[in-house]
C-alpha cells in the first residue's frame, strides 16, 4: 500500500446554478520519498485537489466522493478535530504567493514557532532553536527570523515558507506553484533547494505547476489533469517521451525546448470547458484534433496502457501508432 492513495476523488463547488465539478474522479498514489508532478492548465483542478487532501476547501467546496487514503486512513471522512492533527505534522503545504501566505503583522520566526508549538511538545525556546536550524537549512541567515515578511525579498519569503513547511518533519509536502511568483533566477534556486531537501529528508512531494520543465527536473512521476480529470498518468520519462493522450502531447508541444532546434510551438486551440456544464463524452473532445463521434458521447475511462502508464482516451491504441 502506498503512503498516499487518492481514489476517484470528486470535489464540487456549490455556486448559483449548480455544482462546479472542479475535481471529478482523480486518481494518483505516492510512495514515501517519491515526487509527483500535478500539471495542467489554469482552472483544471490542480489546486483544488491539493486543498482537498488537507481539507482546506473554501466554504462552498465539498468532497463529493472518493477516498484520500493516507497510510490507509481516509482523510476525506475524518473529523475536523482529527484532520487538524495531520495538517503540518504529517502533511504540509507551500502556497503559491509567498507574498501573501505569510501573516504581515507577525515576525516570520514566530509564524514557524507557532506551527511547531501547535504540534510538538516542546518549549518556546526549543521551538526557536528549531526555527533557526530550519533557516540555516534553507539557506537563510537565522537572524532574519526576527524580520517581518515585508522586510524579506520574494525568494527569501519562499524559503521561509519552505522552512515553515518542514518545521514539524512532515512525511508529505504539497507545493502549489511554489515558484510561479518568483523571477527566473530565483525560481531555479528555490527549485534546487526543494530538490535537495526532498532527497536529504526522504520527503514525499506533490508538486503542482503548469510549468512542465519544473516537473521534468523534479518529479518521478506525473499526473496530467484536464478539466477536473486525470488525462494521463505515468512516470516522468514516459510522459515526456512517449505520451499517448492528445492533451499531453499538445501540452508538451506548447513548451519551448532549449535543445529542440527551431521547432515550432503549437498552441492547443480553444480553451478549457466550463466545469459547471462540462461537455458530454470526453471533456477534451471539443479541442482534440483526433476526436470522433464516440468522443462526444462516451466518457473514456482511465486505463492502464502499459505497466504504470494510464491514459483516458478512446484511441490510446491508435495513438501508439501516431508518432509524437
Amino acid at each position: 500500500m502506498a503512503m498516499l492513495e487518492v481514489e476517484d476523488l470528486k470535489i464540487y463547488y456549490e455556486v448559483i446554478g449548480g455544482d462546479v465539478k472542479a475535481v471529478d474522479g482523480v486518481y494518483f498514489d505516492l510512495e514515501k520519498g517519491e515526487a509527483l508532478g500535478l500539471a495542467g492548465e489554469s482552472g483544471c483542478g490542480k489546486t483544488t485537489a491539493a486543498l482537498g487532501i488537507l481539507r482546506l476547501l473554501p466554504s462552498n467546496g465539498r468532497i463529493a466522493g472518493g477516498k484520500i487514503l493516507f497510510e490507509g486512513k481516509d482523510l476525506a471522512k475524518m473529523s475536523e478535530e482529527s484532520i487538524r492533527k495531520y495538517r503540518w505534522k504529517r502533511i504540509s503545504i507551500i502556497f503559491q504567493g509567498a507574498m501573501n501566505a505569510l501573516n504581515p503583522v507577525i515576525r516570520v520566526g514566530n509564524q514557524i514557532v507557532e506551527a511547531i508549538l501547535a504540534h510538538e511538545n516542546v518549549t518556546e525556546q526549543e521551538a526557536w532553536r528549531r526555527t533557526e536550524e530550519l533557516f540555516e537549512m534553507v539557506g537563510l541567515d537565522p537572524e532574519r527570523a526576527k524580520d517581518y515578511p515585508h522586510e524579506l525579498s520574494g525568494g527569501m519569503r519562499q524559503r521561509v515558507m519552505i522552512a515553515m513547511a518542514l518545521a514539524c518533519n512532515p512525511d508529505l509536502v504539497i507545493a502549489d506553484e511554489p515558484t510561479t511568483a518568483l523571477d527566473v533566477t530565483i525560481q531555479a534556486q528555490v527549485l534546487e533547494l526543494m530538490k535537495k531537501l526532498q532527497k536529504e529528508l526522504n520527503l514525499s512531494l506533490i508538486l503542482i505547476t503548469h510549468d512542465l520543465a519544473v516537473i521534468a527536473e523534479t518529479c518521478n512521476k506525473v499526473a496530467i489533469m484536464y478539466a477536473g480529470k486525470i488525462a494521463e498518468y505515468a512516470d516522468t520519462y514516459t510522459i515526456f517521451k512517449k505520451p499517448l493522450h492528445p492533451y499531453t502531447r499538445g501540452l508538451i508541444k506548447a513548451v519551448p525546448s532549449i535543445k529542440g532546434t527551431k521547432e515550432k510551438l503549437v498552441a492547443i486551440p480553444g480553451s478549457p470547458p466550463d466545469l459547471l456544464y462540462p461537455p458530454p463524452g470526453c471533456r477534451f473532445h471539443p479541442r482534440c484534433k483526433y476526436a470522433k463521434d464516440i468522443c462526444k458521447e462516451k466518457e473514456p475511462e482511465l486505463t492502464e496502457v502499459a505497466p504504470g502508464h494510464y491514459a483516458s482516451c478512446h484511441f490510446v491504441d491508435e495513438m501508439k501508432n501516431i508518432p509524437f
Partner: protein
Amino acid sequence: MGMREYLIKRIIQGIVTIFVVISINFFLFRAMPGNPFMRFIESQPRGKVKEMVDIYIKLFGLDKPLWEQYLIYIKNLLMGKFGYSFRQVGVPVSKIIMERLPNTLILMGTATTLTIIIGIAFGVIAAGRRGELADISTVVVGLTLYSIPIFWLGLVFILVFGFWLGWFPLWGMITPGKYFSNPFEYAVDYLWHMTMPCTVLVLVSAGGWALITRNALLDVFTEDYILTAKAKGLDERTVFYKHALRNAMLPLVTMIALSFGFIASGAVLTETVFSWYGIGRLLYEGTMQHDYPVVQAAFFMIAICVIAANIIADILYAYLDPRVKY
C-alpha cells in the same frame, strides 16, 4: 526618518491646519446674513434701537475693517484670549465652553465607548457566523440603524419612553428643583437623564461599526495567510483571533482614534433634541444667535481635538502595523 522627526513634522502640519481652520471659521460666520445684535436689540425699549446697536458694534470692535478684526482675533488667540460672548454680555467664552464641555464629554465619551465595543462585538460575531442567522440579522439591523436619522429616533424615544411610558425624563440633565443630599444621588439623576440620548447615539452609530468590522474581517478571511494558518493545523480560535482579527483591526484602530477626537464636538442633533446642555447645542445656539466668539472658540477646540486624534491614530497605526514606516 525617526519617530521624533515624524512627530515634529506632524505637529507642525497640525498647527498649520488649525490656523487654516480658524481663519475659515472667522470669515465664514461673518459672511452669514444678519446682524449679531438684531435679536438682542428687539427686546430693548423702542426708540433707542439705533443707538444701542451702535454702542454694541463699537464695544465689540465690529466697526473696524474685517482684516483688522482678523488680526486682532489672531493676536488675542495667540495670547490665549477667546473674548466675550455677544449674547451673554460680559461672560468670557472660555467660561461658557468649560461649563458645557463636561456634559458633552460625559455623554459622548460614554456613547462612543459603548458604540465601538458593541459595534465591533456584533461585527465579530457576524463575520464568525457568515451566512447564519446571527450574521443576517446583524446586517439587516445594522443597515436599518445606520439609515435612521438620529433626530427622528430621538423624537420617537422621547414620545415612547418619555411621554407614553414615562420611564425617562423628556428633556434636560437634572430634575429641576430637586434637592440632592449627596453627590451620588445627583449622579444617578444625571445618568437617568442621559440614558435616552446615550442609547439613541449608540443605536444609530453601532450599526455602522458592526458592518465595517464584519467587512474588514471577511476581507481578511480570504487572505492567503489565513489559509496558511489553517493548514498549519491551528484551531479555529487561534486562526480567528491571532491571525484574522489582528489584521482586521488595523483599519479600525484609525477609526476608533478619530471618533474619540470628535467627542468634544458633541452631538448637535441629539443634544438639541434632548435639551442636553453640551457643546453640540452650544454650536447650534451660537450659530443661530451670531455669537461669533463662542462658535469660533468651540470650533477652535474641536479642531485641536480632531487633529490631535489624527496624529495619535497615525502613531498607533505605525506601532501596530510593522509595514508602516515614518
